[in-house]
């Protein structure tokens, strides 16, 4: 047992820079402390350990941010990130919701990862990522602080995503000049990617236009054990056991991983044929044990004649996009930028 552990540790150390290894390993360690075998979650400790940053109306690196209470009833908060204009001093209250000025301004609704249980919109790693997205895509980014499992199971996260989408879509100050409409993209990593898919589905069914979905290492799964899961279990920071735990914490009691939330194109899922689903950019890390499910998702979209681009990053592990210290990161940011700007 300990011998194979050593091999696993050494393998993962060879594919990521040391500081990335330390960061992801310490997350892994912390997360192991938080998941209880009985399915409950040590939320107090989780909140204590999670590194957070406040919003900042002073532009840093050309981006400023502020928090908004989108839904009083559920306490749904989101953090809005906007590009600062020129050299102006700190914005006052009225500048925060000043109408966007360009002909076309992409608005990216971002759902952070954390396997439905961890992290928040104001987690440092996600604040960092959202700021980068603003610069890369010349976009406004709205990061949604959705309710988490196990305290709030399916469909809370999706409901919150939907609430956020409706809010974004109805903001007059986010409308692009060109057509007086809000140009919405949905994006997310890990569980956030999963949420983006399901919110897009709901949007399509309700007639709200989504221009594109950006899914970074999206979290999908199923009852069956796939080849990649067996091959990569425990090798690169993630184990099957922890994946199972998170699904159990999110999905309704008594259901299994073939629930369509987890397995949208599985035995209980449905085809998207004939549906006007937005184009998708799906990023899969070659060392992620759930890649077979992610690839199956891409296949499912293709089979239904949906526009999808797959970015398969061979030597990438989970979380590669959290630190801008590797090639994968830059390739992906480039692709995201192209994905979004091709509509402008």
């Amino acid at each position, binding site marked *: 047992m300990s011998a194979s552990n050593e091999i696993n540790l050494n393998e993962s150390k060879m594919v990521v820079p040391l*500081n990335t290894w330390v960061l992801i390993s310490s997350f892994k360690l912390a997360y192991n402390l938080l998941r209880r075998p009985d399915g409950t979650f040590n939320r107090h400790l989780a909140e204590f350990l999670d590194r957070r940053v406040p919003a900042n109306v002073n532009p840093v690196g*050309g981006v400023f941010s502020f928090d908004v209470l*989108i839904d009083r009833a559920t306490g749904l908060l989101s953090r809005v990130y906007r590009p600062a204009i020129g050299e102006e001093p700190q914005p006052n209250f009225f500048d925060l919701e000043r109408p966007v000025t360009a002909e076309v301004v992409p608005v990216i609704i971002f759902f952070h990862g954390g396997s439905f249980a961890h992290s928040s919109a104001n987690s440092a790693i996600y604040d960092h990522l959202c700021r980068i997205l603003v610069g890369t895509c010349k976009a406004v980014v709205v990061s949604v602080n959705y309710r988490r499992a196990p305290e709030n199971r399916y469909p809370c996260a999706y409901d919150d995503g939907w609430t956020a989408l409706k809010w974004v879509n109805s903001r007059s100050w986010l409308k692009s000049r060109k057509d007086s409409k809000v140009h919405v993209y949905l994006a997310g990593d890990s569980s956030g990617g999963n949420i983006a898919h399901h919110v897009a589905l709901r949007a399509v069914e309700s007639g709200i236009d989504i221009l594109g979905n950006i899914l970074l290492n999206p979290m999908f799964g199923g009852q069956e054990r796939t080849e990649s899961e067996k091959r990569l279990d425990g090798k690169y920071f993630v184990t099957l056991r922890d994946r199972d735990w998170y699904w159990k914490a999110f999905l309704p009691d008594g259901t299994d991983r073939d629930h369509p939330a987890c397995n949208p194109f599985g035995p209980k899922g449905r085809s998207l044929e004939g549906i006007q689903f937005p184009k998708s950019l799906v990023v899969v890390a070659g060392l992620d044990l759930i890649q077979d499910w992610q690839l199956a998702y891409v296949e499912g979209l293709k089979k239904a004649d949906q526009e999808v681009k797959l970015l398969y990053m061979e030597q990438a592990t989970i979380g590669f996009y959290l630190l801008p210290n590797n090639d994968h990161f830059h390739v992906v940011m480039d692709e995201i930028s192209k994905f979004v700007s091709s509509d402008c």
Partner: protein
Amino acid sequence: MSLHDSASSAAGSSSGSSSSLSSSKPPPSSLQQDIVRHLAGAGYTIRSSDLPQVAQRLERLETAMGSSPADFFQLASDAILYNPSDLASWVDSLLSEFTQLPTCCFEFILAPVDNAWTTAELHEPRVQQNITYEQQSLDRQLTVVTAMEEDSDIRLVHKLMACAECVQRGDFSSATSLIDDMQGLLARVNTVCGIRKVAGHFIDALSRRIFLGIGGGSVDGCGSAFENEILYHHFYEACPYLKFAHFTANQAILEAFDGHDCVHVVDVNLMHGLQWPALIQALALRPGGPPLLRLTGIGSPSPDGRDSLREIGSRLAVLARSVNVRFAFRGVAASRLEDVKPWMLQVNPKEAVAVNSIMQLHCLLISDPTLNSPIETVLNWIRDLNPKILTVVEQEANHNQLDFLDRFTEALYYYSRMFDSLEACRVQPEKALAEIYIQKEIRNVVSCEGSARVERHEPLAKWRRRLSGAGFMSLPLGSNAFKQASMLLTLFSAEGYSVQENDGCLSLGWHSRPLIAASAWQAMPEPGSCVSCLE
């Protein structure tokens, strides 16, 4: 190159980096920085020279975890962790916890809801000293903004700002007509929530400033001391801020007193002594028995000749007797905190001393170039007591800025947040009187100047600098205090409150905006001694 250099350096940090990333690799950094910048962006401070060691320890923990998962799990529930930002030290503390024999851990649970003395469960604490990295200040942040629910909100805020600006310029006639406008507007809208609720109080404060002048606060007086105490008490009951303050401070004091048989608490403003029954209780149940507890309560002399300090002291003595804690009380009446001298407190060199300040230090920030700065005077005498711990709780707000408009804006958002949070509390009539308590603060911040303006709140970042400069070093409040505080909130069952940990300090806020912050300090060793406080 990284877009956002570090989570902790915001205002004024390098904005030279371009905001769009091209497909080429980032240029190599010309400065070899010791703290790893990328991890700083993730909220962690770690020296690049420490990386290999930390990696090794993570591996050891991983292996240990694999071989005895049950123990590891026990570790998770019992360990008290400090300073999660300091990656090296928290990995170390986990590893050392795991490699020692399990001992029971410290948990001090208090039911804070009313003044009934309830039992508390205790186990033995293990306090670990940790390195803290100084976090750079975020001088101005406007955090939570309620999505403007109606156009009337925007108009109201517009007018409030415009009015404040007129007042600042001295254009009182424009200001007055704006006030009339706003009162008309308010009469027509539902003032149940959001900024509308608090707008009325700000309009009132602006009126006072215009019509009564900036010493106007003192005409109103501070109310009678008795009235103030009643309002304070209702504020205490209606929302969790003061309870959080007492709770967190007590937890830290308890941990600091561990192993000491003679302890002495100096409360810089005793008020009703609401904080102390819980501490007495907890000390009573300490394994190994309670210490001898002395409490010195400082307070203003009572105008009506009552010795209120002594009355409160007697009540506390009765409680202490009932739980078998040897207790002695002393009252020190002083109208100004800077008039207190260490000899008045009669501290015994063998005692462990805790100095406790709940929302008092900001009153001392009145700057008068002709006098010694009161805050320095007070921090000096505190330091001269050589306390084991100094607990400081302050409003997390920037209400002491020179510019009136800046102050006004900050206060508008701070107090609307606070009023919103009050809405979550169901208890009447506490809520109504609590609102009046808050209203007095608003009046003071907005309509007073000079020595009349006592509500000079400053953010934690500034207090850190001040206290470090005065010879104190930070004592981190750990995961245990955090957990206790979070549990306190669940007793309140009001969604929306949150406790946050920030570099060893805890804050309580509403909808992610911290409104009150608690920190603990101890005197730095005298220069010339061999102890180094930072590795």
